[in-house]
Every structure is written in structure tokens, then in C-alpha cells.
């Protein structure tokens, strides 16, 4: 068990963390690349900085929607993200690990804050999952991974919370710790290749949305050519 934990903490962590970082860098670069191509094709050469910024901010802080459209769901989503981002990065134990491995550390969340945020992440994660299941309109536009992700993301939070806050026998503790590490590592691997990649693509997506929808001049001919219907009446 100890050796399995060591493996999960050592080489496996390095592998999955590297896949996450490199994979995110890859999708980021590919997106920029596609963006540049779209921009070169676009008829309108202005870059909508302002629009992108406001839309991104609207997505991050959904105040407007919170007030008039599914307020509880929007608030849950926001609070879920707060814990999701803060706890893994600023937990004292995680910082200790980084300190031991790389020699760099940063200030940590106070213990009770970390516990509170962990619990809030678990609760709001379940809430947005329920919100998705409960709404017919949300179900209509959901894919399989949309149901899976909220549950998937709270697994390391639950196991981590239990590890830290309960007195357990070593065998149970080690099993929970292994669950904690392995579930986080599965998330690392899947992260760049699924919708969670929005953690780095967030502002880009808004920019692409606005730029890519400006069709270049005479794009209709290219479409017709590709579809093999050149000259056919529309």
C-alpha cells in the first residue's frame, strides 16, 4: 500500500501533472493558431477587445444572470469555482509538497478556511449537478461528460476532507489517500481534453466566438466547393 501511494505520489503524479500542463499549453496554442487563421480570413479586421472582456467578465461573475435567470444555480456555480480553484492551490499540505519537491512555497489558507471552502465546494458541486438534472432545458443541451464532471471533481475534495479531519485506522486512511491522489490524477489527465480546458481557454473562447463569426468575403463559394455543389442554386 505504502509503495502504491509512493508510486501515485511520485512518477504517476509527475506524468499526470505534466500531461495537464503540456496539454493545456497545447490547446491554448492550437486555439491561438486557429484564431490567427480565422482573423486572417475575416473580412472585418477589428479586434473586439472590449466585447471580449465584458463577455468574459460576465461569464466569471454572472451577476446579471444571477438576478434574473436561475439565480440559485448561477450562484452555486460561482461559489463552486471559488473553492475548486483556491483549495488545491493554497492548501497548506499541498504547499508543503511543492516545497519539498521544488523548494518553492507560498502562503497558505488558514486551516478553518480551507475546511470551509472544501465543504462549500462539495455542497455546491452537488447543487449544480442537481440543477442540471432537475432542469429539462439543461438536460436537453447536456452531454455525458456534463453529468460526470461535477461528481468527478468533488471526489478528491471528499476524500481529502475525510483524510484530514477524521481519526482513521491506517488502512482506511491509506485507501482514502490513494483515492484522493488517483482521482485528482484522473482529473489532471482528462482536463486538457474535455470541457474543463475552459480554465485556460476562457477569454479566448469569447474572442474566437466574436472573430470567427465574421465571415470572409466570398466564403459561400468555398462552402459550395467543399460540399461539391458548385454552381448549384442556393
Amino acid at each position, binding site marked *: *500500500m*505504502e509503495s502504491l501511494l509512493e508510486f501515485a505520489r511520485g*512518477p*504517476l503524479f*509527475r*506524468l499526470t501533472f*505534466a*500531461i495537464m500542463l*503540456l*496539454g493545456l*499549453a*497545447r490547446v491554448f*496554442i*492550437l486555439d491561438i*493558431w*486557429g484564431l490567427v487563421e480565422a482573423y486572417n480570413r475575416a473580412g472585418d479586421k477589428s479586434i473586439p477587445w472590449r466585447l471580449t472582456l465584458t463577455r468574459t467578465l460576465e461569464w466569471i461573475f454572472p451577476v446579471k444572470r444571477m438576478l434574473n435567470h436561475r439565480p440559485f444555480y448561477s450562484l452555486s456555480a460561482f461559489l463552486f469555482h471559488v473553492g475548486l480553484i483556491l483549495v488545491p492551490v493554497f492548501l*497548506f*499540505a499541498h504547499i*508543503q509538497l511543492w516545497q519539498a519537491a521544488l523548494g518553492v512555497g507560498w502562503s497558505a489558507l488558514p*486551516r478553518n478556511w480551507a475546511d470551509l471552502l472544501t465543504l462549500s465546494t462539495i455542497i455546491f458541486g452537488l447543487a449544480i449537478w442537481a440543477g442540471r438534472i432537475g432542469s429539462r432545458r439543461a438536460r436537453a443541451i447536456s452531454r455525458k461528460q456534463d453529468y460526470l464532471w461535477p461528481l468527478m471533481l468533488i471526489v478528491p475534495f471528499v476524500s481529502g476532507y475525510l483524510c484530514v479531519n477524521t*481519526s*482513521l*485506522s*491506517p*488502512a482506511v*486512511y491509506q485507501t482514502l489517500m490513494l483515492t484522493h491522489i488517483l482521482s485528482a490524477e484522473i482529473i489532471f489527465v482528462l482536463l486538457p481534453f474535455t470541457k474543463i480546458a475552459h480554465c485556460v481557454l476562457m477569454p479566448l473562447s469569447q474572442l474566437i466566438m466574436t472573430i470567427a463569426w465574421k465571415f470572409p468575403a466570398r466564403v459561400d463559394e468555398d462552402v459550395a*466547393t*467543399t460540399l461539391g455543389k458548385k454552381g448549384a442554386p442556393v
Partner: protein
Amino acid sequence: MNRVHVTKTILWMLVGLSTAVALTRYMFGLGATTNLTDATPWGLWIGFDVMAGVALASGGFVITAIVYIMRQERFRPIVRPAVLTAFLGYVAVILSLLVDLGLPWNIWHMMIYWNPHSPLFEIGWCVMLYTSVLLLEFSPVPLESTSRWARVRSVLMKLRFPLVLLGIMLSTLHQSSLGSLVLIMPFKLHPLWYSALLPILFFISAVALGLVMVSFEGLATSWLYRRKPETDLVARLCKAAAWVLGLYLVVRLGTISAAGQWALILDGSWESFLFVFELLVMAVIPMILFAIGRVRRAVSGQWIGCSLVVLGMVLNRINTGGLTMIGATGDFYFPSWMEFAVTAGILSFMALVFLSAVEHFHIWSEQPHEREADPHASPEFSRSGEVWLGSPPVAARTRYSFAFVMALAVGVALMPGERIRSSGVSQVSAQAARGGDTLFIDGNRDGFGVAFDHPRHVSANGDKASCVLCHHMNAPLDKQSGCTTCHRRMYQMADAFQHDWHASPKGASIACVICHEEGVYRTAGSALPCDACHRDLVPPGVTIEVKSYRAPSYVDAMHDLCVSCHRRKTLELTDRPDHAQCRTCHETPLPDYLQPDMADLLRRPGYNHVVLPAVVKGSN
């Protein structure tokens, strides 16, 4: 996926893996990536990448000599691929050097600090100049696609003959000087490979290999892109190669005769077999194959003959560059996986550049149809048929970047971060002392140790009360546990604390919070010290502090234990000023009262160099 896609995906993966290894090499040094040692300071990266790499890139100067100097116009269609391969080959050599050199950012020092006596200095200069010449020779090809550079291109075309001539002259120098490189090592290199004519042998074999490499490359790319192979041209090249290989054989065997070394070939050593094998593969068999017209003109015959020459020549360069020095150095070296990964990665990168150049520029007489370069090809879909993969260039970059990133991540995970090949001493486990009342303490069992007079130490330190002075670890039911119980390794710290056993319900079954305070990250450092529970762990009268569960290495423990006590005694006993010096234990003659069986033990064959020679000999 077609052949090109599969090939390129694999090449990108190799590039990714080698990028991770290169990062390791620059972060942690050569010791963390290679199996090189002080006895074998040159390995795969010099033997294969540089020595064989330069030889494999000789096609450029051979073909330009044939077409521009000897004016054989029929070979003109293969000039461009040959020059491009040569250029990429030299770039690969330079990239390999940037990985292999200890201080690669000083590579330009060859330009300002001159040592004209050194063959390596000359090779360095020639490689720098020849790579530039090859770039100038090739650059008209990419320039012809734009009209903006027409003037530059026409100047380069005018300069082509002098460039070709300069390229041939430079190649002659450094291809031969690679042979001079090992001339300074007559004390190391096996005599079957060492010869004063090595520079000439290297040059002749480079010419033969140049002819073969151009053929080989034509065969490989025609398979990859399903092109029609240039069978007729290749057959002519193979015929020329047969003549050159014959010349090589005559000179090589001539040097053996002149040195009177025929006996060495038949002496049955592994080097003699290697020599025969090498000569058969690189020269004899291909020469015979190429001499037969029917074989030479068949594609399969060309494949076999060319592959043999390439493999044999690479083997020859590796043999000369270090493999046959093992007999003298006694240091067996086999490259680590990381060395292979870097070599493969650099070659893959160059292959990718070559394929990309072939798809975008006019290298062959007919350009291969490659859909990735064609923006109007019909769309590709994922295997399930649901997701559009994007236009062919987009699909391609998605696929290749995925291969690259995954391989790079695997490489990062496999980084060792420390010396991968130790000099063989750190892992020696310690062994308990043997003997009667006089102990022979020989931790690493090399027959080299200290005869420890146990009774005298007991009596001098206060009889039974003194046991704990040395035997501080009183394991259950054992009052005199050996030092090796905890200090298990000769030179490395060892775990003396079994965490799993303490935590397991079947063992001590102690909950975490008993040792690890709550709310603090659980490390060995933040846990309770051992003697908080094991209160009789350190018996009274002993000055050892047990705080960590890491036991020092055997050597450190023994030296600390003995030396610290001896130091104290030096101050107490004024008549023994040298009591704390190494010689006291490691060199004193055996005392008279030592039992005869101990002396017998020390005289056994395995212990012939025990450290107490004088009296053992006399005491019998």
C-alpha cells in the same frame, strides 16, 4: 491513416520524448541522463551521432562531385535530395553535440581559442564551414518559390561551382580527420582498428557510404510516398560503390598485413569476431551483391545491399569510436534509454524537416501528393464519424501536437534527476562482523577491514556496564544487536523505522495521530521521536540522540562510534597521541594475545590483504 501519417506521428512522439530527456540533461547534467563514466567519457552520442552521423551525411559531397565535377548529368535528379539530406545530417550532428558537450554554450570557443594541433579543432571548423556551404548550396531550392529573392538566387547559382568545390575539399578534410581523432589513443584502441592510415580508410569508406546513402534514401522515400523508385540510377550508384568498397578492402587488409596482425583476427577474442563481422557486413557481402548485375538492378537487392553497408559502416564508426576500447579500459558501457531517446529524437526531427521540405519544395522531379499540404482536400472525420477533425492542416497539427505532448509528458515523468550509473560502491550492503572474541569487521566484504579486539574494549571500558556504549540499539530479546541491523548500507542512509509495520493493524496498530500531531502535515520530521515511546532505546550513559528514523550509513556510524571515543581517549591517555588516527585501527600490528584462529581466518585466501600484515605473518 496512411503511411505518411503513421510515420510522422511516430516521429513526433520521438521528438517529444527526446525533448524531455534534453531538459533532464540540461537541468541535472550528463550523469543523470547517460551511462558515461570517467573511463568511458564518449558514448552513443559521439560514436553514433557524430562519428557515424558525419559519415552518413557524406552523400552530399559525393553526388555533387559526380554531377558538377564529373559532369554526369543523368544523376542530376538526385542532387537536391542528396544535398538536403547532407545539410540536415550536419544539423543533426551539431544538435547532438549541443546535447553531448558539457558546456554547449561554449561551442563557439573554437573560433577564438585555436589549437591547430588538435584533430577535433579541425573537424569543428570543417563542420561549421561545410554546414554553411551546404545551406548555400541548397537555398536556391526554397528561394525559387518566391520571386522576391530572385537576385539572391541568381548570385547563389553563379557561386554554385566554387561552393561545390569548397564543399568537397572541406569534406575530404573532416571525413578523414574523424579517423585522426582516435590516432592519439594507441594505448586504448584495439590494434585491428588502430592504423596510421585511419584517416584514409575513413575517407574511402565515407565515399562508399555516400553513394549508398543516396540510394538508400531514394528507396526509403519512394516506399513512404509510393513513388516510383529510381532503380536505374541506384543500380549505377551501387556499381560505383562496389568499386570503392573493393578499394577499401584492399587498403584495410593491406594495413593489417603491413602490421602483421593476421594472427589477431584468428585469436578467437570477441574483438576478432567483431572485426570479421564488421568487414563482412560493411564491405565484403555488399561488394559481392553489387558486383552481380541482376542483384544490383533489383529493388530487393538494392535494399539488402544498401542496408548492409549502412549498418556495417555505423558499426565500424562505433567500434572505432569506443566499443573496441573496452578491452583496454575494462569499463563496460551500454547507452541508457535516454541516450537512445535523444539520438532517435534528433533524427526524427530531421526526418520531419525533410518530409516537410519534400512536400513544400521542388525536391524531386515530381512532387508527392500530400493531402496535408492541400487545403481543398475533402474533410476528415473522427473514427466514430461524428466529429469533423478540421481541414487537413488543422487535423494534422492536432494529431501531431497530441503525439508530441503525450510523449513529452511521459519523458518528464521518467526523469530520474540523479546520477543513473553509480561507480558501484553506494549500494554495497554492510555485513555483520565475524570472529570469536576478536571481531573481523569487514562491512562490504572486500576482505579489507579492521581486527577489533572486543575483550580489551570490554575490560577497558568498565565490563558489562559498557555494552551500551557501542550497542545502543537494544532490540527486543537482544542485548547486543549488531551495527548492521540498522546501518544496513555501507555508504547510504537507511530506514531504521518500519512505518508500515507501526501503522498496520497486524503490527503495532498505532493510529496516525499518536505520532503525528493533528493539523500539521505528516512528515518524519514532524512525528514524535522514536525515544518518546521506546524509552529504553537509549540506555543510560550513552550520548546518542535518536531523533530521526534514518540510520546513518555503516561507514559513518562505525567511524563516528570508534573515532569519537578514541578522540576522548586521546585527551585522557597522554601516552597515546596517535590514538585517533586512521593508522591506529587500520594499520597496527596484531597484538600478541590474539587467538590463533583469528590469525588463521585472516590468512585465508579471501582475506589476503587484511590490514594487519606484519604480526599475522610473524605470530604463527
